[in-house]
């Protein structure tokens, strides 16, 4: 992902010095990312041991287990839980460093392949939601900006409403409206695109509100710029002005926001996957936290952090392409 976004950047750079700066930027981003991952792993490790509940319970079939002393002892040594905490920490970090995520306490299967299958489902959901939110936000702002006061107020009002709606409430509303009343869509996630519609709408609508609000403001600013006046003077049509000149400016804050937005979609996925009974990282995390399945929690947290970091690097890279001023400022 990073490679393809870097290529046009270096191509744009005019000098070896600029290329070095770009590589330096990339190195800082990657180094920072690794540091963040390590911190996430550390925080998760200690947080899960500070909260009440013994990981032994997860292995022995849930809390309230009445397993024998022999069983408990065997499990403790099998999983290295009889070691001092600090030893367990370094052992765990050592394994994570070589991407060994261990075996799930509850599912008894290797964590990495299991979590990766769940990641796919969540990526489909979140990326589809991000694309949908972008499409809705662009459509709404372009259609209502630069128009009369009434159109702007309606557009802005809709965005505020959408941004304020909590996921669980929106999900219930959509189920009642589109499934139980109109019978258009299944209330649970079924295989195929039809099952994706309600979960994506639930995640995309609040985000549409956020993106729309931000874009509307910069769009309004862009309309005041001299280049818009000169474009109009050249005889550019109203939609031509919007699409060819103003959009690029309006999209910038939206792009910067997309990294954060992706993170919020990942956390929104916990609610949406649970409500629509959709497989994915969010639901995996929820059930794993409940039963203290430490290897699964760690893997999901790291994978989410990694996805988030990659997404942020990607949006920054896109930002540099769409807005050359970003790199210029860096050069001064």
């Amino acid at each position: 992902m990073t490679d393809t976004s870097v290529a046009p950047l270096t191509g744009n750079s005019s000098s070896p010095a600029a290329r070095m700066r770009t590589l330096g930027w990339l190195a800082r981003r990657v180094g920072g990312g690794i540091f963040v991952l390590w911190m996430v792993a550390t925080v998760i490790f200690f947080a899960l041991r500070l909260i009440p509940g013994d990981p032994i319970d997860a292995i022995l079939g849930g809390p309230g287990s009445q397993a024998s002393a022999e069983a408990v002892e065997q499990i403790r040594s099998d999983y290295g839980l009889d070691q001092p905490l600090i030893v367990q920490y370094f052992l765990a970090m050592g394994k994570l460093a070589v991407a060994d995520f261990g075996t799930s306490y509850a599912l008894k299967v290797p964590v990495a392949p299991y979590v990766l299958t769940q990641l796919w489902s969540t990526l489909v959901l979140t990326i589809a939601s991000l694309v949908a939110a972008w499409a809705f936000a662009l459509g709404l702002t372009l259609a209502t900006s630069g128009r009369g006061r009434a159109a702007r107020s309606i557009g802005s009002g809709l965005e505020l409403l959408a941004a304020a709606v909590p996921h669980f409430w929106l999900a219930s509303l959509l189920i009642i409206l589109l499934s139980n009343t109109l019978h258009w869509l299944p209330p649970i996630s079924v295989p195929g695109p039809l099952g994706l519609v309600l979960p994506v709408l639930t995640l995309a609508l609040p985000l549409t509100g956020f993106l729309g609000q931000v874009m509307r403001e910069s769009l309004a600013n862009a309309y005041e710029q001299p280049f818009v006046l000169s474009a109009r003077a050249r005889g550019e049509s109203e939609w031509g002005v919007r699409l060819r000149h103003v959009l690029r400016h309006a999209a910038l804050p939206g792009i910067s926001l997309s990294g954060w937005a992706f993170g919020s979609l990942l956390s929104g996925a916990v609610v949406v996957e649970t409500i629509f009974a959709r497989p994915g990282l969010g639901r995996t995390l929820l059930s794993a936290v409940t039963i203290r399945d430490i290897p699964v929690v760690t893997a999901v947290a790291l994978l989410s952090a990694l996805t988030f970091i990659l997404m942020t690097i990607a949006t920054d890279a896109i930002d540099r392409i769409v807005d050359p001023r970003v790199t210029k400022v860096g050069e001064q």
Partner: protein
Amino acid sequence: MSAPRTVLFPLAFAASAALLAGCTAAPEPALEPVSGGTLVYATGDAEPGCLDPHVGGNYPQALISTQYIESLVSKNSDGEIIPWLATEWTESDDGLTWDFTLRDDVNFTDGTPFDAEAVKVNVEHLKDPATASSTGYLAVGKIDGIDAVEPDHVRFTLSAPDSALLESFSQPWVGIQSPTALEREQAVNCESPVGTGPFVISDWVKQQSITLERNENYNSAPDDAQHTGPALLDSLEWRFIPDAATRYAALQSGDVDVIDNAQPNNISSATSDSGIEELNAPRPGASNRIELNSGKAPFDDIRVREAFIRAADVTPGIESLFFGTAERSFSVLSSVEPAGVSSPDAFTTDADAAKTLLDDAGWDTIDSDGYRTKDGERLSLVFPVSTNQSIPAEQSLFEQIQASAKDVGFEVTLQPTDLSSWYGALFTNEYNLVSAPYTKVGADVLRILYHSDSIIPAPSGYYANLAQLSDPALDQILTEASQTSNEAERQSLYAEAQSIIVDGFYVLPLYDQQNHYLYSTSVEGFRALPTVSAPTFYDAWLNK
């Protein structure tokens, strides 16, 4: 389909339809069962980590394993033990030797024959620490020796007489699996355990569903089933839908056929929906009840315990919050337990009596917030609530109890937490009140919950006697009851035990452990197995 079956079906299903419809419905015309189709079941219980119910052993595992694993004995709707994989059994006079005669014509779905050796391997599997069994391990705890005398004859030698042995064997957690399959690695057996049941696991998509196909060679239905031979459905799809509102919406939209863990508001609105029916199948064992921790102050004083029970106004809360779907219980035991004794008079509400009792106990001063104090200390009660186990209606009920207890001067602090933190609070004795469900077949559950031995924590920290009731007289009665096989004597001992528990004000019963299924009217022949009230789809068919 053989000739006798075609004759039997309409009669049997008319009978079951009449039973399910209860007393309100007019007799329906007998329906001819149709074979085929896929039934979609949506569960709100957690997705099991392991489909082998020997490993760990919780209710979600019992729900699904009932479809593919069978037990030595079952229970009918009258609460009597009936033959299943075992046809007969005898107990020696000293109660230390049990002989079981087994069916000799049953095979596991991997082709391995079911025999005495298989039973032996299963009990040994439960006892093996590497299996990490919890529930099943307890159930076979008194079994010392297992002897496969003949292929159809197994003998158990016990360390002490166990009048609950048959009840224990009826539980899904002690179900019998193929010894060939058990030889595989645990992770493999967890994915695809092999039993003798009417369905076979064919696919498990994690976080989504488990697909089960019909066992075409099935011949081991329990006596109370409505037909013989293979199941009627081609397959079962077992979906995991954790959200209660979504589950109900999916039933309404026809995407699923049966749901469990139906919430009171949905059950109530389903009664006005002509396409949906309800099956109320309370779980056996203990009722849902609030335990009063007598192991520490202030509930180490019987007067304070009685005052709390007199103060807690439970019934109006149940009526309003559960929309008439749950009936107030006045028994420590589930209403499906024949040994249960209901004592409504012991649980009357009387705020004035409560105040007098507190005055007598020395809690006679009232602070500026309206709570009672003694020697400058406030009458405070900590009540950890597991949000995984207590449904929203139950949590609201606890809030109402909190309010009515405040009226006489108790400060009740509700602490909603997740399951692990909740157990954490119990294990460190940081609670005065707690509601902990316990499912087990038979009144022997009283021994597990209220014998003083159950205050000693298991290696995991768990202990079942959360009232911390320690009474040598009660211990003796419960031990005696667990060792006598005379049914009448056993019942009277359990009645005596219940009166000690109730009269000591250790427990505030609320209602049966709720277990409501909602299902589409196109589903026929669906019932809950009377053992632990798990659903069985052996007789079920789709009238679509």
